[in-house]
């Protein structure tokens, strides 16, 4: 019997290990708590690259905003772009779509827009300050801002058509 004493603790440790690993499924280790959720969106003033002058967030008060960070060097942004284009055309009367160019040059961004289409204003985040203010960590990332300027949610990575419709419905209460 003397040789057996270790079996029970060893079995217990093994069982604990399996339980812990089993319970780890379904949790996303990368999920970062989104600090700005529910807060007032930081204001900005950025140059419009497919239009005239500059745009501020303040000037959009009263309309919900869908704000998409993208870059010309970002492959998934190109995949996502048609969905946003479609969204701006079909839901543009309910929400304002805004593109923000992230870590990119104006010339590259213009050329890219000429290829992929630009149905909504695209703004140049020259020093990356707006991306920092919003806590955007990469592209594409899409923020949903309510009519009173509160950040309701964000979507990381290319957004699907269904997701976009769902979020816009949430924003407009429709």
């Amino acid at each position, binding site marked *: 019997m003397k*040789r*057996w004493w270790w*079996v029970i603790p*060893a*079995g217990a440790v*093994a069982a604990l*290990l*399996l*339980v*812990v*690993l*089993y*319970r*780890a*499924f379904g*949790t996303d*280790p*990368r999920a970062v708590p989104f600090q700005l959720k529910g807060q007032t969106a930081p204001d900005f003033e950025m140059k419009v690259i497919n239009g005239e002058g500059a745009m501020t967030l303040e000037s959009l008060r009263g309309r919900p905003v869908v704000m998409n960070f993208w870059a010309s*060097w*970002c*492959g*998934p*942004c190109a995949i996502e772009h048609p969905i946003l284009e479609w969204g701006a055309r079909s839901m543009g009367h309910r929400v304002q779509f805004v593109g923000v160019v992230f*870590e990119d*040059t*104006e010339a590259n961004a213009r050329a890219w827009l000429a290829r992929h289409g630009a149905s909504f204003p695209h703004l140049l985040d020259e*020093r*990356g300050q707006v991306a920092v203010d919003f806590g955007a960590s*990469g*592209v*594409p990332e899409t923020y949903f801002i309510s009519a009173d300027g509160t950040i309701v949610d964000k979507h990381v*990575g290319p957004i699907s058509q269904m997701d976009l419709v769902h979020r816009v419905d949430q924003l407009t209460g429709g």
Partner: protein
Amino acid sequence: MSLGHLGYALVLVGVAAATFGAVVGLVGGLRRRPATLRWALGATYAFAGAMLAANLVMEVGLLTDDFSIRYVAQVGSIQTPTVYKIVSLWSALEGSILFWGLVLGGYLAAFAWLHRKEDPLYMSVALGVMLSVATFFAFLIAGPANPFEVLPNPPSNGPGPNPLLQNHVLMIVHPPMLYLGYVGMTVPFGVALAGLIKGEIRTSWMGPLRRWTLTAWIFLTIGIVLGGWWAYAVLGWGGYWAWDPVENASFLPWLTATAFIHSTMVQERKRMLKLWTLSLALASFVLTILGTFMTRSGVFNSVHSFTQSDIGPTFLVFIGILLVACISLLAFRGPLLVAEDHIKAPLSRETSILVNNLVFAALTFVVLVGTLHPLIAESLFDKRVSVGAPYFNRLTLPFWVAMLFLMGVGPMLPWGRADGSRFRNQFLVPAGAALLTVGVCVAFGLRGGYALSVFGLAAFVTVITLRELVLPVRARMRDKQESFFKALSGSASRSQRRFGGYIVHLGIVLIAVAVAASSAFVSHTTATLRVGESFELQGHQMTFEGLVRGQEPHREYVAARLQLTPRGGDGQRLLAPRMNYYESSTDPVGTPAVHDTVREDLYVSLLAFDGKSQIASFNAWTFPLVSWIWWSLPILAFGTLIAVWPVRRRKPGKAGTKADGEGGKPEVAPADAPSPTAEQGAA
């Protein structure tokens, strides 16, 4: 029939062969039917053949851009350079599991071939166990991780492999080396489990068991070091080891395998620690599977877990089966493996190895607990915690220092019982060398307790190891009037294990010194510069000359031109840290510029830039001695090669443990005159 269907058919052949062989091997071996070994051998070769063919089919698919195969559509692209097309076999989950199958097939076939003339019953059980493992992996390839699924509407092009994998040539070598290390643990596992199942492990098996483990060990070592090198050369955060869960996953089996290699000596010499030694072989394998689970299940946050998937549950079931099988076999059959001797003196080789094993076991425990702690905290206490490098550094450092000390003391001690006064005499010179080293370091202004103790102990170990290597050579030169080289090769072949082992020790000392120096005496600075401005680090002057854009087939890049005037002023050169942009990636991947010398590396990465105003930000480090880590690889590989090289058959009467060192200390000679076939059975 498309390529995808052909590949899948081959995988099914593999499943059938592995299942058949596992059943036949286990049943035949346990029912004492020696004739069934033939079938188990055949099944092993069939499994290996099917895996080889399936991998070739996948390679053809990758090279011909056959996007009708799901895996090719997932990782392939027309623009990918050919060499990266070949290696994209292991750039994502499904392909790497398929590649795992190939490596497993190779190991099993080699084992079967080399040991085919061994005791048929034992071989049948061992092959049965290994083929059970093969069944699991073949099932994984056929089901949850099937790479050959045929797409009804194939895309015209794919995204290409993960950019991190395309960024450096080391990525071509690092994963296969790790797989060779991981998968290689299957063989010792099979041999050890067969020993438990049969309730006996013949001493003649200990040689092959050790050699197979050493083979896996050296691949694992190379894989781990190359992984560090890759991280250093690609990721641009200025480090080579971050205690990331997946790094730890490869480190855990390395620790137990290293402990195993040492404890087999005690088992062979003293017929002790049998159960412990076998447990280490089992643990090494279970930890490789746990490591693979960590990498592939997506439950850990890590730079490596880019291939998340739903194979996690399948792996978990396998881990459960393994744990139950190992623990119950150790409990029921373990008592049959009784020690035939016991430790007689506290000052002896066996005691030092026992302490070494305890240190390794404690380290394994510390690293395992640290790695799993975030999961434990979340699942049991619903808290999110992260365990970072400080925990691991603080807790493991004392063990490393202890290990270095043992690496010096162990080889000095004889088996059985040491003579205290002799030991003290032998101790004096190395201890003096250690003190001298520390004194010189202090005189040159170096401070820091751990780093200095590592340097001192490194001198201590080096002196002892060189003495242990040289003394037998000198004795031969004196007694047999041989030339130095003849005496050296004679001494090396006379006791390969000892000789090879000590060379490996020297390589480890090199790593220890490099790690201590590069982490304790690192310097770092950041700079944001306009064109023409410069900054300085540790006497190295760097001037920013502007940004360059460029294009390569699979990526675009922006490089910063930095004119470097190294410390001392001569040998100006251009550094070009850069950012690479891949079609498929949302984030740029940097490539740091490294100016490496024996003394230190100057390491610069491009942090951010603005093309319009030509402003760039840099991170720069100097790491003293860091490249010694990579240079230890040839030494480690050379030492291991000597240790595993098949021993020449000795004529009867010549084998034995004749004293061959000064003072009559016995060599670690082939202790138990293994059977000739077992001796040939080195990998």
